[in-house]
């Protein structure tokens, strides 16, 4: 029994190529978002355009909108995952601060 046949290599390489292609299609399909929605404890606390620069102070977090991008400027939680998750601008992207139950969404 041959360990690796030509067909195996062709199958593997074509699957990888298809997924690389798929990855780029997914990246292209992401549209720029229009509105920013900030939720705390599942209720909407802010809704506004992504094009308007502003800072939104919350109880434990500060959300900042600048140059069409949104990010968590600071949070008082221990893990700081939301701060580290960086800037978002595409429709469907989110930044979540689980300890303070804050979600930033782009629609």
């Amino acid at each position, binding site marked *: 029994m041959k360990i690796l*046949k030509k*067909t*195996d290599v062709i*199958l*593997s390489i074509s*699957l990888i190529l298809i997924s690389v292609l798929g*990855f780029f299609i997914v990246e292209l399909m992401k549209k720029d978002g229009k509105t920013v929605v900030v939720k705390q404890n599942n209720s909407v606390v802010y809704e506004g355009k992504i094009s308007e620069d502003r800072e939104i102070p919350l109880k434990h977090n500060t959300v900042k909108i600048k140059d069409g991008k949104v990010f968590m400027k600071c949070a008082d939680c221990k893990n700081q995952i939301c701060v580290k998750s960086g800037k978002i601008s595409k429709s469907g992207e989110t930044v979540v601060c689980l300890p303070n139950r804050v979600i930033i969404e782009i629609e």
Partner: protein
Amino acid sequence: MSSKQGNNRNRIKRLAIYSLLCSLCIVFGYVEFLIPTSLIAPGIKLGISNSIAILLLINGDIGGAFAVNISRILLSALLFGSPFSLLFSLCAGIVSTLVCALLIKLPALSPIGVSVAGGVCHNAVQVFVASFVVGRGVWFYLPILTVAGVICGAAIGFLGIVFSKKAKIDF
């Protein structure tokens, strides 16, 4: 009478070997848990226990591959999982074993290719099931999972070949 006795003995031997392989699969599941593959991308697992299914398929025992894989999935969900994880792994397990069982008949593919196809199908089915539970957004994750499926599948197929050289299973 003697043939019936022989048949019975054969069935008992089969049951014993399948049970042994099944418990081996569950141990593999634990070994896998110790390897932090999910650091590369969340949700990725090697699937070492599928090499046992590949081993059985190499031996031409399709029924055995199904029996071991499905009982392995049920048992590990009972031990470590939740109803949700059972749904995911059962759907993916059945489909990927079916694909492997069909492809092993193709002379053009070696067990590595069969395992690659199985791994990719497994991940695709999981994304399909997840799209019902979580939403359409998870489809974006499929390309990364497909690449992971190819790499892990190749490794698992190779492991299956190594096992089939070392362990002689004859009924």
